[in-house]
């Protein structure tokens, strides 16, 4: 009955799941950084980056196309780069008149757009893979090890904790409303938009009140069990030989990517 739509962790026994979360977090962040630094039109480097991603997918035992299948959710955000197509630099390819505005796509702009799209797509997939193979507390733990400020990690971990509380609460409120949203013959149901909007507004208010009180209770319960501001996890974080190998190997690939992309 609980909404677990946000939890993207996929339980599996794999090389990537067992990898030290610190290695995974660092490799993912550097992979994203590397993508951002690659120049436009470095197709060979993009191709290699994608192969690396496929290889990581393979290691996760979730399927070679796992991160690809999940990545479409982020595509709408890439549309923000559409304006790059109409870059004033480069050779015009066509001329579209939209009323008073004339849009001129250029070859340079098109390459830029394609590059942005690919790079963000690759980065999103890396993040998806990280979240799918790392338990959330482990991820927070990794961030703590990497000296991310405690305030940030605490805020993120609470956000995560309460997201579920909040969505469960929403689910129950909606269910209660649904149960009493009925029709009888001869009358038009639903009254009018203004009334329904008012009810929805009331529900949002109730939701705030309840989640506020509930979060207080949860926090008290956490304190009562000795919570001191740090997420604990039973998974021991010890860098094994395999973790070092993976870390070094990823760094080499990232360096190679940059070299190929630039020369």
């Amino acid at each position, binding site marked *: 009955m609980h909404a677990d739509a946000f939890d993207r962790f996929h339980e599996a026994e794999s090389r990537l799941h067992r990898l030290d979360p610190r290695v995974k977090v660092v490799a993912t962040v550097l992979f994203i950084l590397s993508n951002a630094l690659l120049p436009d039109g470095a197709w060979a480097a993009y191709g290699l980056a994608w192969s690396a991603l496929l290889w990581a997918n393979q290691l996760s035992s979730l399927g070679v196309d796992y991160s690809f299948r999940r990545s479409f959710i982020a595509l709408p955000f890439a549309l923000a780069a559409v304006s790059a197509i109409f870059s004033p630099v480069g050779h015009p390819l066509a001329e579209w008149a939209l009323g008073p505005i004339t849009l001129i796509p250029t070859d340079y702009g098109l390459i830029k757009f394609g590059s942005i799209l690919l790079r963000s797509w690759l980065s999103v997939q890396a993040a998806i893979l990280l979240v799918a193979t790392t338990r959330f507390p482990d991820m927070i733990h990794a961030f703590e090890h990497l000296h991310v400020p405690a305030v940030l990690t605490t805020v993120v971990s609470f956000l995560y904790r309460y997201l579920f509380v909040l969505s469960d609460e929403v689910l*129950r409120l909606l269910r209660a409303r649904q149960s*009493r949203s*009925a*029709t*009888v013959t001869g009358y038009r149901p639903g009254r009018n938009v203004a009334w329904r909007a008012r*009810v929805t507004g009331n529900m949002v208010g*109730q939701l705030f*009140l*309840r989640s506020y009180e509930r979060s207080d209770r949860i926090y008290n319960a956490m304190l009562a069990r000795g919570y001191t501001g740090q997420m604990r996890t039973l998974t021991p974080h010890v860098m094994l030989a395999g973790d070092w190998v993976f870390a070094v190997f990823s760094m080499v690939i990232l360096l190679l990517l940059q070299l190929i992309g630039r020369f």
Partner: protein
Amino acid sequence: MPVTHPSLPLTTPLLQGCDGDVLKVADLHFHYPDHHEALRGVSLNLCEGEKVALVGPNGAGKSTLMLHLNGILTGEGEVNIAGLRIEPENLPTIRAMVGLVFQSPDDQLFSPTVFEDVAFGPLYMGLPEDEVRERVDEALEMVLMSDYRERLSHHLSVGEKKRIAIATVLSMRPQILVLDEPSAGLDPRARRGLINLLRDLPITMLISSHDLLMVRELFPRMVIMDEGRIVADGPTAELMEDEALLEAHGLEKP
């Protein structure tokens, strides 16, 4: 631990001559998205005016079954309310016929004041304002809470919230009242008040409860559920004497 009681004739309804004219559930199966099988072939008939208690351990499928009775959950099988089969297109009508009261009254009450909460159902139906007022007054009177009209739901005691939650569905004039653990968390006085209220409500009723004392006092017919199945269905007085049966399904003779 799977327990079966093949010795009990499950198919014989208690009242003869009625084919489940208010509620008829036939071979209902349901599993949650995580593949946990919550209902494994539940069949249940309720006749007009019957008051039936649904008992069984936590996780037996009682709440899941109740969420099927107004179509919030839809499993495989058949659910009929007063002859109307639950299907997507008649859900709004079904919801006017089934008054479902959730276990936690906090889940039920989502408006700022008692009046607005009790009025939600009738208002949504699009009834004229005079009739809405009349229904709210009637419903609050039935649960003996007429003085609470303008109170803030948020600030009531659990027992008061429970009564208001019942009023919110009574105002829709349902054919059957479905209550999920109505006496849970009530102090003895509030519990006694609730028992008297449920006794006096002249309406078909299906309640789930762990409160076997209340069940014995109030409900002539008892249905025991365990592991997604109905394992016994019969006169409360008889089933309560079968200590082996009660014990096998995590219940205690009161």
